[in-house]
């Protein structure tokens, strides 16, 4: 039995009953695809097709088709990788860390956020494969017995750590997501009208029947999975940051990178969740499930992590000056006032200034503003990675080899590929799987549903309806 304070704002509005929750979520899965969905899906397929052609050509011709040069040998490929991995952090944060903190508002958004995580990590992994140049040799990154004199991968290298971190993160996220899906798939199975969907959802739901014994174990493993995923999600971006931090390039060689990257990852991930959820919410009419409370809570996290990122930027500058190292100081001076000043200031404006607008209650509860700022944040976070990577490289130790980077159509095309892939996957998910975790939402609506007649947690119905929190919601 759960206890929710009667003065808390309801997590789900509209007085939903358990049957309403099932109906609202399942009808998206059971109905025929809508026209909007088809149009959106075809567009994302077209984008994916264009990207695939570019990617094919990248692999066919070799990495020379990118705009890399001798000085800037790592640019959009790694920028996009870090950007997508960062986005992939929000799902696990919502479902694992917020579970440990008993933040019940996570229940309405965790399913879609976890799906987003999985697709974003796949996009990130595609950039690893891309910039290997010879993706068919990708298995060289694994510690497999071989005939090259039994040479092994180098466990001292952060790039190998990355292989372990990303693959573990991806598989554990899939597991977490699937375990959470099983009860909902069983709900769809028991409602299915035609044989094909009954069979498919029957296989996927693994014979789930919701017995108390199963639920008790389910709760147990959810908690342990959350406990495992929390350090895991922090380790992933820590290791990604070490790809840079363990090198000796001025601008990369800083100990602040792990916490700074983790905060940045959560920042951009939440912004992407906002973008996806705000659209899904309207298209699927889920306003009662993803309420202004949810939007506001996520915006608060965006403001917090955005501020941490801002502090990190300033700290980096201070330390560059305070260290007295000429190269370090120049790298940062060059970021701010060098030829890439516009990328630096785009990053600063988008990441540090724009989320501060959320201090206004009106803005953080506004759908339009939230959507707009979330897009801005994602642009800013892309620029952050671009600034860190390209501006630290383009002016190296010998001024005669200073260079600029300009992307070719294949740099851009391969980036477009990841968008096509991401949205194709997300649209498929949103059509064929329940976008909201029905079982978990049913577990938290009790305190708020006006249709429920009884005394809940010692609070009578009349008392519940008269509470200021209930009225606030009705506004």
């Amino acid at each position, binding site marked *: 039995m759960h206890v929710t304070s009667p003065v808390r704002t309801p997590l789900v509005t509209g007085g939903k009953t358990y049957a309403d929750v099932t109906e609202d979520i399942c009808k998206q899965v059971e109905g025929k695809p809508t026209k909007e969905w088809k149009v959106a899906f075809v567009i994302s397929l077209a984008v994916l097709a264009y990207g695939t052609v570019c990617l094919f050509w990248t692999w066919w011709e070799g990495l020379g088709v990118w705009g890399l040069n001798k000085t800037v040998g790592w640019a959009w490929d790694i920028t996009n990788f870090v950007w997508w991995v960062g986005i992939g952090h929000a799902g696990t944060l919502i479902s694992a860390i917020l579970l440990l903190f008993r933040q019940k508002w996570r229940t309405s958004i965790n399913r879609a956020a976890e799906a987003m995580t999985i697709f974003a990590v796949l996009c990130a992994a595609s950039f690893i494969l891309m910039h290997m140049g010879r993706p068919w040799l990708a298995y060289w990154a694994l510690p497999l017995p071989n005939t090259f004199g039994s040479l092994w991968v180098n466990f*001292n290298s952060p790039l190998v750590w990355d292989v372990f971190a990303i693959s573990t993160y991806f598989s554990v996220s899939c597991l977490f997501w699937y375990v959470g899906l099983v009860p909902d798939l069983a709900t769809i199975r028991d409602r299915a009208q035609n044989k094909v969907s009954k069979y498919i959802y029957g296989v996927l739901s693994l014979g789930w029947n919701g017995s108390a014994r199963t639920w008790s174990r389910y709760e147990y493993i959810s908690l342990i999975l959350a406990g495992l995923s929390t350090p895991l999600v922090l380790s992933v971006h820590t290791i990604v940051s070490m790809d840079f931090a363990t090198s000796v390039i001025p601008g990369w060689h800083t100990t602040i990178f792990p916490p700074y990257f983790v905060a940045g990852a959560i920042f951009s991930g939440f912004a992407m969740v906002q973008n996806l959820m705000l659209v899904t919410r309207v298209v699927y009419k889920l306003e009662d499930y993803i309420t202004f409370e949810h939007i506001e809570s996520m915006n608060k996290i965006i403001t917090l992590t955005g501020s941490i990122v801002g502090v990190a930027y300033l700290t980096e500058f201070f330390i560059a000056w305070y260290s007295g190292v000429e190269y370090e100081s120049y790298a940062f001076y060059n970021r701010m006032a060098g030829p890439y000043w516009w990328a630096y200031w785009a990053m600063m404006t988008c990441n540090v200034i724009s989320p501060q607008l959320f201090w206004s209650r009106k803005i953080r509860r506004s759908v339009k503003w939230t959507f707009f700022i979330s897009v801005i944040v994602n642009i800013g976070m892309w620029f952050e990675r671009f600034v860190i990577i390209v501006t630290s490289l383009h002016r190296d130790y010998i001024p005669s080899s200073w260079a600029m980077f300009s992307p070719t159509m294949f740099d851009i095309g391969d980036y477009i590929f990841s968008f096509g892939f991401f949205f194709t996957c997300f649209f498929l998910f949103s059509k064929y799987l329940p976008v909201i975790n029905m*079982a978990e939402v049913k577990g938290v609506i009790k305190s708020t549903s006006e249709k429920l007649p009884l005394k809940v947690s010692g609070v009578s119905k009349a008392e519940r309806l008269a509470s200021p929190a209930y009225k606030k919601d009705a506004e």
Partner: protein
Amino acid sequence: MAEINKKFLVGVYDDEDIALAAVNKIKSAGVKIYEVYSPFAIHGMDTAIGHPRSRIGIAAFCFGVVGFLCALTLTTWTMGIDWPMVIGGKDPLSYPNYVPAMFELTVLFTAFGMTFTFFISNGLGPTVKPLLFDPRCTDNKFIMAIDLSKNKLSETEIESLIKASGAEEVSVKQL
């Protein structure tokens, strides 16, 4: 898991608080409850029915230990024994650098081992036909099943107990 030729009394409840109270009431009357099925987890339901505490955490810990030992063996063997290499002037076996890989493998083994233990211990699998006393238990109803062969009280006595505890419907189901 399905039992054969057994008679069950099935009570349908509308609300988890009523169902939980009903379980306590029926149990105190000396009736053994077979199982309660619900669309979501009800805290305290497992202990109210009298299910023992799950030992899945122990399994998780064991898998974690196995994962850690595998990672320890892998890094020690590849880096220190099979082909030792001096990288950056450091000892070929420099364990602090292997912590990330060890950590990831520990998590990987724990997560997968525990989840598959979960599936197996609950008898869940792609070909499993669910034992459903009432299909509404995955939607909005709370279903209590009582195995008559395991109880001393008569069918009518238990039925009236279920009804008195606030059930909406009571039916008999033969499996």
